[in-house]
């Protein structure tokens, strides 16, 4: 039964920019998630997805990404803030699926070179998640001034993020368990 299956919570690295510091944040969060019992995760790098840009929406659906989203019980989305918003190519990727997301929780990890940790991008992201059928959790992680949080090799320099990510994952995992029970056992009236 569903309780016997581990929760699948992939981490989406939502930028293709060269030299992206978000990759360090994504690897760190995926590592913390992998330590949780009963959870399986993987890092999905949008730069590695073969999505064309001459069409959009479900017209560019990648079968591999679709299958991973269908199998997922929740998502971590790591998004840098570009010009006060999230990356356009991240939305292009997310827009390629819909039914795969319904009634699944999503937690956002914001990353920025400046001090606000992607807070403005996250606020702009929330209505998109809602329309995709995802359920945004109320914890975020904000990696502000990210060049001081990780060194150039991705080593964590600020240990406060261990606890911050821990609280974020506690909530995401609770929501993933609860919503999976709902998807599988509670019928729409």
């Amino acid at each position: 039964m569903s309780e016997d299956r581990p929760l699948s919570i992939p981490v989406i690295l939502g930028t293709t920019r060269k030299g992206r510091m978000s990759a360090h944040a994504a690897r760190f969060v995926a590592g913390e998630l992998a330590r949780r019992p009963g959870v399986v995760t993987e890092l999905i790098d949008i730069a590695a997805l073969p999505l064309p840009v001459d069409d959009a929406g479900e017209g560019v659906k990648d079968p591999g990404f679709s299958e991973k989203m269908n199998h997922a019980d929740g998502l971590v989305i790591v998004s840098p803030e570009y010009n006060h918003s999230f990356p356009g190519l991240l939305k292009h990727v997310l827009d390629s699926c819909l039914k795969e997301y319904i009634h699944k929780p999503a937690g956002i990890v914001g990353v920025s070179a400046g001090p606000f940790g992607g807070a403005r991008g996250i606020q702009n992201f929330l209505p998109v998640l809602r329309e995709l059928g995802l359920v945004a959790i109320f914890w975020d992680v904000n990696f502000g001034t990210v060049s001081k949080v990780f060194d150039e090799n991705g080593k964590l320099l600020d240990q406060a993020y261990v606890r911050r990510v821990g609280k974020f994952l506690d909530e995401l995992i609770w929501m993933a368990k609860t919503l999976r029970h709902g998807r599988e056992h509670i019928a729409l009236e």
Partner: protein
Amino acid sequence: MAREKMICQECNMELNHHAEKLIYPSTPQEVRRMDPTLGGLIEETHTCPGCGKGEARRL
């Protein structure tokens, strides 16, 4: 609501119908099929209690 049940193609279990989402029509065929009261098409989402796989169908 009471339509034909969906069956999981992987484990043959009856899927749980847990969501209906309004989809705005994007093709002439969908425009013809849209529910004028709601202003779009309904896409049902169903999930297998055995393997967790999701399926959808548009009405």
